[in-house]
């Protein structure tokens, strides 16, 4: 309408809008040009000459091009609405208060970075109970912790102090920050954006740390892949995680197809621009996978709130300080290894690096670099004990050891405590879903360290229901990524996480892990689900049925034992089956290490194998 008249009454057609829109818009006040200063000078010839350039009123335009005034009103308003974008005032929000417009700094709103669909999908998985979230925030457990923020703080406050010790190299906090910013820029140039997942398959090297921090600075999410993983596992996890690319060793690049990049390929000479926004504590930064791989990947999305609150609250419990040097024998691809980094970075302690565990190497690094805190699995200590390394090397620098990853024999704890005289040998129980749930504290009685996994970490609640340990707290993940079936099984109706571990609690509140209800094998702290191996064996030409169960091992805790029913009394050897699985690109740590041929399997009515009835011959 214009002056109350409808478009039909005005006679404005689409053809008229298309024909005169441009002319009306340009002749109107929307574009104004003035030569000299004619009005102030009352220069009438110039005023008349420039009248159109200075912008005509609707009636003047109407008379000029042969439309009614009302038609011009309608056309001009239509054109203004059609052309003017809304939301442009957003550009002004960065101006004033000492900041001025700089053309070269302006990025059009539509070109400003956002989250990809994959990133939003992952972020959507971070759905916590709002009441619990409020509680954690109010209590200060969830704060604005990010690894980027922690490293920046150390770089600012003690930038010259040592952050990483790797072989003969010592890296300061400032240097670590610089390197991570350059790697972040490299990722940025490779097309990685906020919220994207980046897979990392690297040993415990400086490159891992720089890559991790670079990914975090960019606001991306790291998905670790254990070093033994090969074709089948890599393909499944890359697909499920929707990883944009993978950072890997040169020798492994081909395993990732076109997605693999070496650290050197991504490293960059210039740091990431400060204009690229950093992460906040609510952002996801880790996507880790539990034992399930090809069968049914259970991706665990973790944000800074959960992981870093757990580390920050844990540091004083472990009595760690900035003067400590933390060494992890556990791989950084495992959350227990990452916990060593998180605690070190929370407290400002230096990290001592051991690229990959070998008993001799661990002993040598401890002797040479003199770490004060050691993150280790029972299997590591057992291996060192078997080689007599505690008597051959100096372990006296240690004043804290945290053992975790698998069931810890009491005699092993006692042995280690005897050998490392000034070291508090503690136990920790954790899961990928929560990091550090229980631990003993320095100062606890030796029996507590030897026989229990200790008490809940700050901010953690536990309960035992039908012998099963259940957990909730500020450390707990919100649910598996893209796996509703697993989520339905993992949480109780009232929001507790069902760990699948069996436990008992004593009067002092110390928890002993008594067994495991989950069907996974824990080989030296690395848990895996053997279903994909079983699936491959099931199609072997000589095998009729196959089932893999854990068998006790004094060093690794557990190994895989294969029960098999062969076809028509065919002979089959363990070596033959191992070779077959290697050809199928199964990781070595998942290979069966014993074969038991049985005439038949115990089966349920629906013909599922009842693994609990498979007895390993002595």
């Amino acid at each position, binding site marked *: *309408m*214009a*002056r*109350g008249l409808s*478009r039909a009454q005005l006679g404005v057609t689409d053809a008229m809008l298309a024909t005169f829109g441009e002319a009306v*818009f340009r002749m109107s*006040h*929307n*574009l*104004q*040009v*003035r*030569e*000299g*200063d004619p*009005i*102030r*000078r*009352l220069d*009438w010839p110039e*005023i008349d000459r420039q009248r159109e350039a200075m*912008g*005509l*009123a*609707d*009636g*003047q335009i109407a008379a000029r091009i042969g439309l009614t005034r009302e038609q011009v*009103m*309608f056309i*001009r*308003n*239509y054109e*203004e*609405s*059609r*052309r*003017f*974008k*809304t*939301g*442009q*005032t957003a*550009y*002004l*929000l960065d*101006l*004033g*208060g*000492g900041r*001025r*417009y700089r*053309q070269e700094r*302006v990025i059009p709103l539509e070109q400003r970075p956002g989250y990809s669909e994959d990133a939003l999908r992952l972020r959507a998985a971070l759905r916590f109970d709002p009441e619990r979230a409020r509680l954690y925030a109010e209590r200060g457990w969830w704060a604005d912790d990010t690894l980027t923020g922690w490293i920046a703080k150390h770089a600012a406050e003690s930038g010259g102090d040592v952050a990483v010790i790797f072989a003969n190299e010592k890296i300061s906090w400032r240097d670590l920050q610089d390197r991570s910013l350059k790697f972040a820029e490299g990722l940025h140039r490779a097309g990685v954006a906020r919220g994207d997942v980046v897979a990392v398959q690297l040993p415990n090297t400086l490159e891992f740390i720089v890559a991790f921090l670079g990914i975090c600075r960019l606001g991306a999410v790291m998905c670790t892949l254990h070093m033994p993983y090969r074709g089948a596992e890599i393909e499944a996890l890359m697909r499920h995680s929707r990883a944009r690319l993978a950072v890997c060793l040169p020798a492994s690049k081909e395993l990732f197809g076109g997605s693999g990049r070496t650290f050197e390929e991504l490293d960059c000479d210039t740091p990431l621009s400060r204009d690229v926004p950093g992460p906040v504590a609510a952002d996801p930064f880790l996507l880790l996978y539990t034992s399930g791989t090809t069968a049914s990947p259970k991706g665990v999305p973790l944000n800074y709130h959960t992981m870093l609150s757990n580390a920050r609250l844990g540091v004083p419990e472990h009595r760690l300080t900035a003067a400590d040097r933390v060494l992890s024998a556990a791989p950084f691809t495992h959350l227990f290894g990452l916990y060593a980094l998180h605690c070190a970075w929370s407290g400002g302690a230096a990290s001592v690096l051991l690229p990959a565990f070998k008993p001799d190497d661990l002993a040598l690094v401890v002797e040479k670099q003199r770490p004060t805190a050691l993150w280790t699995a029972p299997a590591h200590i057992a291996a060192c004990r078997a080689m007599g390394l505690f008597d051959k090397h100096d372990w006296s620098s240690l004043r804290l050891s945290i053992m975790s990853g698998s069931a810890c024999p009491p005699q092993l704890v006692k042995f280690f405590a005897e050998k490392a005289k000034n070291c508090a040998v503690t136990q920790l129980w954790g899961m990928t879903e929560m990091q550090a749930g229980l631990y003993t504290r320095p100062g606890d009685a030796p029996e507590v360290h030897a026989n229990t996994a200790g008490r809940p970490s700050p901010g953690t609640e536990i309960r035992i229901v039908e012998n099963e340990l259940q957990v909730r707290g500020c450390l707990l993940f919100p649910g598996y990524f893209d796996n509703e079936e697993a989520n339905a099984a993992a949480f109780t109706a009232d929001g507790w996480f069902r760990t699948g571990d069996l436990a008992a609690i004593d009067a002092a509140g110390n928890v002993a892990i008594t067994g495991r209800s989950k069907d996974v094998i824990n080989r030296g702290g690395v848990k895996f689900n053997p279903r994909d191996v079983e699936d491959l064996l099931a199609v072997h030409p000589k095998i009729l049925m196959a089932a893999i169960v854990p068998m006790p091992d004094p060093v690794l805790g557990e190994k895989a034992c294969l029960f098999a029913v062969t076809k028509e009394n065919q002979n089959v050897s363990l070596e033959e089956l191992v070779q077959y699985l290697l050809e199928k690109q199964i990781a070595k740590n998942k290979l069966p290490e014993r074969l038991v041929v049985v005439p038949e399997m115990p089966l349920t009515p629906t013909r599922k194998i009842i693994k609990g009835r498979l007895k390993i011959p002595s």
Partner: protein
Amino acid sequence: MDAQAAKRQIAEYCRKRGALAVGVAELAACERIAPPGHRPSDLFARVKSVISIGVGGQTQGAWQLPAKAMAYSGSTETRAYGIAYGLAFHLEQAFGAPSVYVPPDLDPEGGPRVPLQSLKLHAELAGIGARSLAGDILLHPEFGFMYYASVFTELELPADAPLAENPCPAPSCVAMYRQIGKTPCMKFCPAQCLSGEIDAQGSQKLMRYDMAACAEFTQEYEAVPKILAEAVQDEVRTRGAEGLLDPDRKMLWYKVSAGSGAWFAQCFECMRVCPIATQAPQADPILRNKKT
């Protein structure tokens, strides 16, 4: 009372109430320059004089505000309107001359970008402001950036002449233009809606103002209907939303938008960097106070 004495008395009335500048525009010039429908006589048929009042703009502190706050803390136009409103009554009571406070509002026939009257034209012809390179925003050599209001009266008053000199561009702006081809207002305009030329004598040669680009940045009058249209999954450019955006209804949206506080009247960035607006002798309220 003779016309000159009446004019002095009117100026005194305004200054006592906070006006920095008062002038009388030549009616015939207003009538000749303003387009039909927007001439003083189109609003007030028996008008004899056009009185223009200018009040000081921002405080010095206000220039330091973030852009999002300038539109609220930086505007003093209501003060000018208040003086003009009172002056209209005063003219009737003191001189018996029917008078009207000129509504500083928009012409509902023309949509939200067409004013009823050009207060700028009145002030320029009354000699209390000159057009700048910053989109013709008026500047005064003594008072810098001002807000204006007008009164039409049947009282016949002697007209003032426009300013003899235009303070824009300031010498520092000319120097900058000579170096980079832009004055500060051109360089720092976030919509890049300003361009122009300065001649060899340091005077304005050409002023180009893309008002559409400026308005797009600072006057989201269509925000509400566009949001509504987007909310119902319609395209603004189709007939479905057209009814929300026709000139008559857009005035409603203008009122709603203005009332909601969700838009900027102007962004002030060109004035923030203008040495005349911020540093003219009487533009700075702190310095103004010291001089008095």
